[in-house]
C-alpha cells in the first residue's frame, strides 16, 4: 500500500511555515533558543564579574549534590510506583515525613543516653532501619487502604485520592506528635569538614551523598539482579502477561510500595542528620514536590533517571540562581531558585520530552 505524505501548509501570523512544521514547533524552537541564550548570557556575565571564588562554586556544588541526594532517594519512590502502577503517588512526600518525624524521638533518646556519641554508626543504622520500617508501614497501608480499591478506576481517581491521603497522613502525624518543630541531634563525627587542598567539604554532605549512592546501588541491584526484581520489571512491562507467568501482582505492588517507603524513611533520617532542623508534620510537602520534579526530569519510571534527576535538580537549585540570575541582574536571585529549577525542567523536557534517561513510552504505558 502506498502512503502519501501530506505536505504541511501551516502558517504563523500569515507567514507560511516550512513543510512539516507547525506553529507550535516554531514556538518551542524559539523557546529553546531564548532559554539557552539567557543561561549563556547570565552565566557568562557572572563568571566574567568574578564575584564568586572557585572554592565558593565548589561549596555550592557539594551542597547541591547533598540536597540532590535527598531528592533522589525520595524520587525513587515516585518512580518505582509509577513504573508499576502508572500512577503518581502524591502522598509519597508524607511517607518520607512519617519516618523522619517518628524517628526524631528515638534519635534524641539515643543522644540523651549517650548511645549516639559512643556508637554513632550503629545508632545511625538503627535509626535508618526504624524510620524505614515506619515509612514502609505507612506506604503499605496507603496502598492497601487508599489505592488498591481504585486500581481499575480511571487514572484521575487514584491521583486525587493520593492528594487526599497526603493531607490525611500529615494531619494524623500532627495529631500524634504536635505541630511544633523538632530537630535531630547533631552527630559529632558529622560536624567537621573534609579538606582537599583549599577546599573544605562538610562531612555531613559527604555522608548524605555516599549514603544515597549506596542505597541507590542496593535498589538497582534488587531490581536488576534478583528474582523479585525481575517480577517487578515484568509487572511494569505487562501485568496480564506477568500474571500468566505466575507472578503475584498484588504481592509485587505491595513490595514496590514497601521498598519505596523504606527508601523514603531512610532518606528521612539521612536528611535529619544532614539538616537537623525543621522536623514537623509538613516537612514532606516541599521535598515531595521537588522529588516528583526530579523523577520527571530524569525520566519517570526509570531508576537511574530518578537518581540523576535528583542530583541535577539539587545542583541546579544551588548553583543556578547565583550563576544565571545574578548575571542577568535579577534582584533576590535566590528567592527565584524554584524558577530556575523549573525552567531547567522545561528546558530538559522540550529537548527530551521523556526526561534525561527516560524511554519513549508506548501509548499503552504512557
Amino acid at each position, binding site marked *: 500500500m502506498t502512503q502519501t505524505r501530506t505536505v504541511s501548509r501551516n502558517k504563523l501570523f500569515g507567514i507560511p511555515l516550512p513543510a512539516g512544521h507547525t506553529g507550535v514547533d516554531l514556538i518551542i524552537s524559539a523557546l529553546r533558543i531564548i532559554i539557552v541564550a539567557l543561561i549563556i548570557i547570565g552565566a557568562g556575565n557572572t563568571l566574567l564579574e568574578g564575584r564568586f571564588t572557585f572554592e565558593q562554586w565548589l561549596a555550592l556544588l557539594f*551542597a547541591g549534590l547533598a540536597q540532590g541526594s535527598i531528592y533522589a532517594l525520595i524520587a525513587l519512590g515516585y518512580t518505582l510506583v509509577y513504573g508499576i502502577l502508572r500512577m503518581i503517588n502524591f502522598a509519597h512526600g508524607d511517607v518520607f515525613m512519617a519516618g523522619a518525624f517518628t524517628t526524631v524521638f528515638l534519635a534524641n533518646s539515643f543522644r540523651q543516653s549517650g548511645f549516639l556519641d559512643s556508637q554513632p554508626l550503629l545508632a545511625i543504622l538503627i535509626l535508618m532501619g526504624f524510620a524505614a520500617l515506619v515509612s514502609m508501614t505507612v506506604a503499605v497501608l496507603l496502598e492497601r487502604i487508599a489505592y488498591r480499591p481504585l486500581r481499575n478506576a480511571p487514572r484521575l481517581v487514584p491521583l486525587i485520592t493520593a492528594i487526599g491521603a497526603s493531607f490525611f497522613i500529615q494531619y494524623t502525624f500532627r495529631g500524634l506528635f504536635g505541630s511544633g518543630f523538632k530537630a535531630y541531634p547533631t552527630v559529632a563525627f558529622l560536624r567537621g569538614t573534609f579538606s582537599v587542598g583549599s577546599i573544605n567539604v562538610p562531612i555531613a554532605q559527604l555522608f548524605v551523598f555516599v549514603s544515597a549512592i549506596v542505597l541507590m546501588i542496593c535498589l538497582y541491584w534488587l531490581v536488576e539482579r534478583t528474582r523479585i526484581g525481575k517480577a517487578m520489571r515484568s509487572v511494569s512491562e505487562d501485568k496480564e502477561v506477568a500474571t500468566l507467568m505466575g507472578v503475584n501482582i498484588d504481592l509485587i505492588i505491595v513490595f514496590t510500595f514497601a521498598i519505596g517507603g523504606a527508601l523514603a524513611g531512610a532518606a528521612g533520617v539521612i536528611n535529619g542528620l544532614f539538616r537537623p*532542623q525543621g522536623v514537623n508534620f*509538613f516537612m514532606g*510537602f*516541599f521535598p515531595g514536590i521537588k522529588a516528583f520534579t526530579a523523577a520527571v526530569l530524569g525520566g519517570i519510571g526509570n531508576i537511574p533517571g530518578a537518581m540523576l534527576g535528583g542530583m541535577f535538580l*539539587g545542583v541546579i537549585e544551588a548553583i543556578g540562581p547565583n550563576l544565571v540570575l545574578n548575571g542577568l541582574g535579577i534582584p533576590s536571585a535566590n528567592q527565584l531558585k524554584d524558577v530556575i529549577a523549573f525552567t531547567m525542567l522545561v528546558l530538559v523536557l522540550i529537548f527530551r520530552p521523556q526526561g534525561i534517561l527516560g524511554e519513549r513510552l508506548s501509548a499503552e504505558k504512557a
Partner: protein
Amino acid sequence: MFPSICLVASLLVPTVASAAEGLVCRDEIACVMIGPDDPVTIAWMLVTSGANSFFGEDSLGGIEIAIAQREGILLGREIELIGEDSQCTPEGGQLAAQRLVANEHILAIIGPSCSSAAEAAIPVASRAGFVLVTPTAVSSTLTNPDRDSGGTWMPGFFRTIHTNALQGRMAARFAREILDAQTLATIHDGSTFAHDLQGAMIGTFIELGGEVVYQGAVNVGDTDMTAVLTEIATHGPDLLFFPIFQPEGDFLVAQAQYIPDLDNTILMGSDNLLTPGFVVATGEAALGVILFGPNVAGETYREFLSLWQERYGAEPPGGFHAHAFDTTNLLLDAIESVAQVGEDGSVLIGRQALRDAMTATSGFDGITGSLACSPTGDCATAEAIGVFRIGEPEVFEGRWPPELVWTPATGGPEEEA
C-alpha cells in the same frame, strides 16, 4: 433564633427596645442579645494548619488559659469559644472572617495570627461591626489608617503586640549604636511581616548612617540556604538581619557556620525565633545570635507557664502566648464593662460600645506590661520588647529566656504608642 431576630431588629432601628425586660439597644452599629441561658460567644481565627500552625496553637493556648482562669464563666454564664483556621494567607484570613461574621452570636474575634491574613480580614470584620483583636500580627500597615501610605486599618481592629515600625527602629538603633555595624544585609521570606520589618529596619539603619549592601529573600519551605549565604558572604556585611520564621530561620543559622566568609558577620533574627525550640534546633550554631522580640518576664508569667505545662504537658510552641493571654483578658474585661443585664438575666452588648471600651483601655495590667489602646487600635506596650543574645547557658543548659542585652527603657528609641 431569638438573638438573631433581636440583632436584625436592632440593625434596622438601633433604638428599638429588645424583648428582654428593661434592655434597650441604642448602639450605633448593632447589639448582641444573649438569652438568660445562652453562653457568651467569643471566636478565634488563627493559623491552625500548614507549617505555621504551631504559631496558632501557641496563641490558642494563651486564650484557653485566660478563659480557664475565669473558670470559663463571664457575666454569670459559660464562655463559648469557637474558631476558624485563618492560615497565614490573605485568602485564609478573608474566608475565616466571612464565616465568623456570619454568626451574629459572636461578640468579638481574636486573631488573625499573621499580617497577611489580617490585611484581608480587617475589612470584612470591620464592615460587619465586629471587634477584631490580634495578639501576633505586627505589620505596621495594619494600624495605619492612611490608605495613601499603604495603611489598612479600619474601625474595630486592635492589637496587643508591638508594631514592625517599632521593632525595625529598635533593631536599627541597636545595630548602629550598640553593635556599631556599618554594613547590613537583610533576608525576608516574602511574607507581609518579614518584608515590612526588614523595610522598617533598613529605613532607620540608612538614616543613622549605615549602608545596606544586600537585600534578598528566601522561600518558605527552603531548606538549603547555602546559595543565599554564599552570595551574602561576597558582600561581607557586619550584620545579617533575617526576620524569618522557623524552620527557615533555623536552617539559615545552622548553615551560616559552614560559610567561612561569614565568620565576622553578626546574625540577628526577630521574635519569630525567640523560642527555646530555635536553640534546640540549631544547637551551638545559635551561640551569639541576637534576637529581639517580646520581653515577658516576672512572677505572673512564670505562673502562666506552669499553668501551660499543667494543661498541655509541654512548653509553649511559640513566643506570643502571653500576648494572646492578655488579649483575651482585655477583651473579656471590655465585654464585661459594656454589658447591660436585664431583669430576666438576658444580656445586651452593643458592638460600637465594645469597640469604644476597647479603645478606652488604659493602664490594663497584663503579663506583657501595662496596655493602653490608641484610637487606631495599637494597645501594645513598648515595655514588653527587648534585645536578647543567645549564650552558652541557653545552648548547653537549656536556660530560657536568654540574656536581655538591651531594652527601649535602657536606651532605646522614644516611641509613640
